[in-house]
């Protein structure tokens, strides 16, 4: 059974924050429906030139390139026809193969290209947190007899004194 969150029961600050997040998401979601020139630039930077120069389509400038001009014309024609971004990309993939896309898609195995960095980040954060916790729980290093290291309030007093002396 689904539990519906009643916004009115939330803490006012949290409620306001949630509203801001939703508003910002909506603003970003409705962005991107640009003019033909900006669409040409956006999609053109998501495609590669297939001549073997390994450059993004709109950045391929190698002298006498046999492919980039015709690819750009195709792209402009598709945009003028009113094709959607995904349709244009599909058409290019069908014609030139998957390497024409400048980045992996978010489908099938290609999804792992995008997921793995975040998994690595999560694993890294867990590892660092574990290390920090382990080090924090370590017993203090043994100190020679007769020396009492300052602790608590006394330590803070020494630190404050050091700050005053150095004005830092």
């Amino acid at each position: 059974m689904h539990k519906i969150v009643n916004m009115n029961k939330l803490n006012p600050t949290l409620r306001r924050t949630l509203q801001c997040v939703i508003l910002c998401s909506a603003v970003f979601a409705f962005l991107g429906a640009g003019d033909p020139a900006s669409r040409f630039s956006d999609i053109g930077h998501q495609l590669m030139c297939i001549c073997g120069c390994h450059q993004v389509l709109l950045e391929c400038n190698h002298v006498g390139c046999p492919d980039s001009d015709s690819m750009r014309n195709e792209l402009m024609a598709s945009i003028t026809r009113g094709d959607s971004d995904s349709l244009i990309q599909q058409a290019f993939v069908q014609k030139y193969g998957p390497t024409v896309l400048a980045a992996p898609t978010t489908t099938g195995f290609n999804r792992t290209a995008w997921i793995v960095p975040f998994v690595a980040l999560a694993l890294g954060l867990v590892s660092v947190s574990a290390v920090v916790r382990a080090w924090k729980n370590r017993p203090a290093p043994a100190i020679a007899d007769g020396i009492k290291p300052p602790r608590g309030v006394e330590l803070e007093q020494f630190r404050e004194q050091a700050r005053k002396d150095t004005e830092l």
Partner: protein
Amino acid sequence: MAAIGSFALLLALGLSVYSFLAGIFALIRQHDESSPRIGETARRAGVMIFAAVLLASLVLVVSAFQDNFTIAYIFHHSNRALSLPYKFAVLWSGQEGSLLFWSLLLAAYGFVLRLRYKTDPRLFAYASVVIAGVQIFFLLLVNFAANPFGLLGGPLRADGSGLNPLLQYPEMVIHPPMLYLGYVGFTVPFAFALGALIMRYPGEKWIHITRRWTMVTWGFLTCGIFLGAHWAYSVLGWGGYWGWDPVENASLMPWLVGTAFLHSVMMQEKRGMLKVWNMWLVFATFWLSILGTFLTRSGIISSVHAFAQSSIGDWFAWFLAISLAVFVYFFFKNKEHLRSEHKLESLVSRESSFLFNNLLFMLACFIVLWGTWFPKISELVQGNKVTVGPPFYNRVNIPVALLLLVLTAVGPLLAWRKTSLESLKRNFFGPTMGAIAVAIFLMATPPSWGSPFGLRPWQDMTYFYSLMAISLCALVTFTVASEFYRGGKVISNKTGQGMFASMVQLTHRNTRRYGGYIVHFGVVVVIIGIAGAAFNQDKEQEMGYGDKATIGPYTLVCRSYTQDDKANYASEWAIMEVYKNGHMIDTLTPERRFYKASQQTTTLPAVRSTLADDLYLVYEGQNPDTQKPILKFHLNPLVMWIWMGVWIILAGTILALIPNAQAAVRVPAPRLVEHAAPVATGD
């Protein structure tokens, strides 16, 4: 000549093998009477490797100067009309020569190390053996797999095939040596680390020695990477400086790990922590340098810069496997020696910030490695290759870079062991307010003021990233400035000197810390330059005589076209007048060259750089239908900041290498005590 070169290489190989084996013998049988003498001969043989490899390199360079086309390498990479500096650059222009150059630089590093052996004879003896081992690998390559002195069969050729036109640019005489000094240099910290691991080196002295070598090497690699970026910008003509090509990635990976090491090494020096981690970082930096070379030489990954596919990749694969096995063996054998007993006192401390700093650097390195290898992985798993290009790296790595900027701002304000939240608030409040003010200013100003002004982050994700980057750069700048100010104020109050003189004195007293801050500031300047890419504009236009084109605040008028014919190349270029606010401010001449020996055509962009933007013109050729020349115009804001930032980074690095000046403080003589109690170690 070729015979002398070949002989010198064989001699160098023999000396390396002797230095390696005799060095190992002397270290294993250190209690034998003859051991010191054998160790000394190993060291001297190591010194002589440099002389032999230098001789081989000189032979190759002289052969290029003499147009000795009986040597296949010279025939393929030079020609008679090539100017002298580029004939010198022939040494590293092809696979065989660049491997010889690599051997030369490694021998040079080994030469310096072996001359400085008195610093710590035993540790240096271990490091010398490791370097000799690596040297053997490279000398085996140039002797048996990629010999630069191979002779050309058939009749004697009148002229050579010429140097790749893209390499005929002044920076190409500096960029590869700098990059290779960086790559090769990481062998030295690795040699010290492995030596210290094998001999179970007591104390942290090895890490002091290693740190200095790493900083020098890191400086070279930084310089090499940015020279490469500047070369790409000035020569390739696509208007950018970084394309996330596998070869570029190969240079970035050791740089990222090396940078992580330069931060985490402070934890070991100050607190005795992260000994295992640092050992692995040093190894990873070295290993990634070799991996990068493997990527470019094996042909396993497609790249604009890659050398021809050859069997040499197998050699590198074996070397990578052997070096990993050796390191892993000694690590597990002696890992108890690296155990650290120190306690982390607080989460809000410099130690914690370094841990997260290292996490982010390693993550950035992993993303680059993952993106570079993913096409190959995809081919293995799903049978077809995919492209992993700039959109992937920009989308994944930019957030990581922004997080690193946050840590760069916060880190210096955190004290070792523990930082009170009050002091953090006190020191952080001003810089944070400053950064917020910068962000508001950038959003509130009218767009007509120029590219980074009038930023509307809600219009485009790139604008959002750009605003975040510039604001965080402001935050870092304010924290760095506040560190200098507070330190300078303390000295000024104590000595009565002016603030500037006090800050200079402060820097002299702790060059490493304040040199590091200057490096951070340089990084900030570089990132501001990179953030400018969000506002790039470009257009393409046919330009007849007198035609006009407008881009940003500039109007360009085509005044004329002209041609020239030189011994090495024929060229044609446009003469473009640049107007701003109705006044002519410059004349630019974008050029297109046809190199006769290699029968290749290239473009040479004309760039007008200012602090605000770069006007970048490319002469693309003629429209076959209208016969009118086509020009491409790029307006790239803030690019000059990148190159300025690099100079600041290098200045900071050099400063950090200078020993500290002693503070002129009178300290009363301590009273002698009969029984001094032992004191806990710490910083």
